[in-house]
């Protein structure tokens, strides 16, 4: 019974994290669109000037970190629904590794630029 309650709390926590990360991602998407627009049209100098403004740099860093977190949570749900039990753990670990790698690379390149 205690085990079941723990699992219920875990599921509720997972749901809450997914919703909260989604809520924070809504306003942060602004930086993604601004970044995409500059990738397409800005000169290299303008791009660097934009990226060096702390509000833009940290806005993008926050977007990448949260999107990776949100993605990892989402992939876990997909695997739980569509992947059979013995392979679920490997799939979840691979996804977590993928999102951690993406987040680390993005933060590293944003700090480097």
């Amino acid at each position, binding site marked *: 019974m205690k085990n079941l309650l723990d*699992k219920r709390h875990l599921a509720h926590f997972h749901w809450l994290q997914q*919703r909260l990360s*989604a*809520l924070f*991602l*809504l306003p942060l*998407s602004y930086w*993604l*669109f601004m970044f*995409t*627009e500059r*990738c*397409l049209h800005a000169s*290299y100098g303008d*791009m*660097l000037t934009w*990226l060096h403004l702390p509000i833009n740099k940290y806005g993008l860093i926050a977007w*990448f970190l949260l*999107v*990776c977190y949100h*993605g990892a949570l*989402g*992939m876990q749900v*997909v695997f739980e*629904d*569509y992947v*059979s*039990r013995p392979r679920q753990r490997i799939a979840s670990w691979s996804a977590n590794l*993928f*999102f951690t790698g*993406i987040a680390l*690379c*993005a933060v590293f*390149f*944003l700090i*480097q*630029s």
Partner: protein
Amino acid sequence: MPHNRPISPHLQIYRLPLTGLISISHRLTGVLLSIGLMGLVFILWQITLGEARFTQMQVALHTFPLRVLTVGFVYALLFHLCHGVRHLIWDAGHTFSREKLTLYALTELLISAGLTVFIAKELM
């Protein structure tokens, strides 16, 4: 926990209603957007490599296939975002009646398409 936990309906057999189709598309766009993150990280990498690589990447981004991919990414993101907002409305306990389900599903599709046209015009 037993290992015979039921899994989701088999999509080859079960005929999904519009809300169901949107729900599975929400998952699909989530997976595709995750793959697309690699492209964004690649762009950041090119920026760190200097002006020549950035310009080269910018030229590539203006080719037809990559323009289509960019608009596709934007649409996937906006669709995922719109359906995400719908989930938040559901979590608040609203719009569960059968008529409202289809009406709101169509609204979501229209809003995400409209936003994509608006943003794609700004981007391209």
